[in-house]
């Protein structure tokens, strides 16, 4: 069982470089053919500096600190009370300070910010922040996990 003592627990920091090939793969996976995701000339013609990613491309990197924390299933279950067999992704929020760009070199940090129960379900909130090499915050992610009773 996940306890409120988890609140404030810091996840391992992660590093991610945004590449054009990955942006194209992600855009194709969600079925979005917008040329600014695939073609630099199209991106520039649209007034962008370079290829940009769909906003939800954040999914590729923004939960990595959380995944690092819970990747050892035994540790997650026994030390944190998070049983991956019973966990579902219930909600997701992104706040974008700017668009995700090809070439971005991101550091992503994260921590557990909330733990609560409703009926026989537990909710665990991870908040992560993706920061560019310049120090500029690119986006903030809030991940709500639901652990079934």
């Amino acid at each position: 069982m996940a306890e409120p003592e988890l609140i404030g627990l810091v996840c391992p920091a992660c590093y991610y470089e945004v590449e054009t090939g990955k942006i194209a793969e992600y855009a194709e996976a969600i079925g979005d053919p917008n040329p600014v995701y695939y073609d630099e000339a199209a991106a520039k013609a649209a007034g962008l500096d370079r290829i940009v990613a769909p906003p939800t491309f954040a999914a590729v990197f923004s939960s990595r600190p959380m995944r690092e924390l819970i990747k050892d299933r035994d540790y997650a279950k026994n030390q944190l009370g998070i049983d991956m067999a019973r966990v579902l992704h219930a909600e997701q929020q992104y706040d974008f300070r700017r668009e995700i760009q090809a070439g971005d070199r991101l550091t992503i940090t994260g921590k557990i910010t909330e733990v609560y129960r409703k009926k026989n379900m537990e909710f665990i909130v991870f908040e992560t922040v993706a920061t560019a090499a310049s120090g500029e915050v690119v986006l903030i992610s809030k991940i709500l996990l639901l652990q079934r009773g």
Partner: protein
Amino acid sequence: MLEVFNMVDQENIKNAEVGQELPPLQKVIDRVIIAKYAGASGDFNRIHIDEPFAVEAGLGGVIAHGMLSMGFCSHLLVDWCKDPRMVKQLKVRFTRIVRPGDIITIRGKVTDKKVGASGAVLTCELSCENQREERVLEGQAQICC
């Protein structure tokens, strides 16, 4: 294939009215799409990939990533506002499991508009329904232009 966006499209967004509905999208879910999304996102949770594991976990079989549906919402919004930079906030709740064979309709509606000196902020309500008209996702986006 979309034409590259231009300033006229952005004026259309600034002139959007509360109650205006975004052109809906429809997506058919199959195991290949789920596999492609797993690869693209790096989320290889067995519930999306390993059928016996998903059955044993009580899910009935492999399920789609909730985040795939959120990606569909991104497609809906950027198809409409054209410029990915306009999407400033996205928040969603995954309300029902999405399975191979499901047909998902993605809808959006402008529910609020605030106009200020620096531009307009539109709030769009988002929803995704399956072929049984059951809601699989609900949420909200903030579009700034």
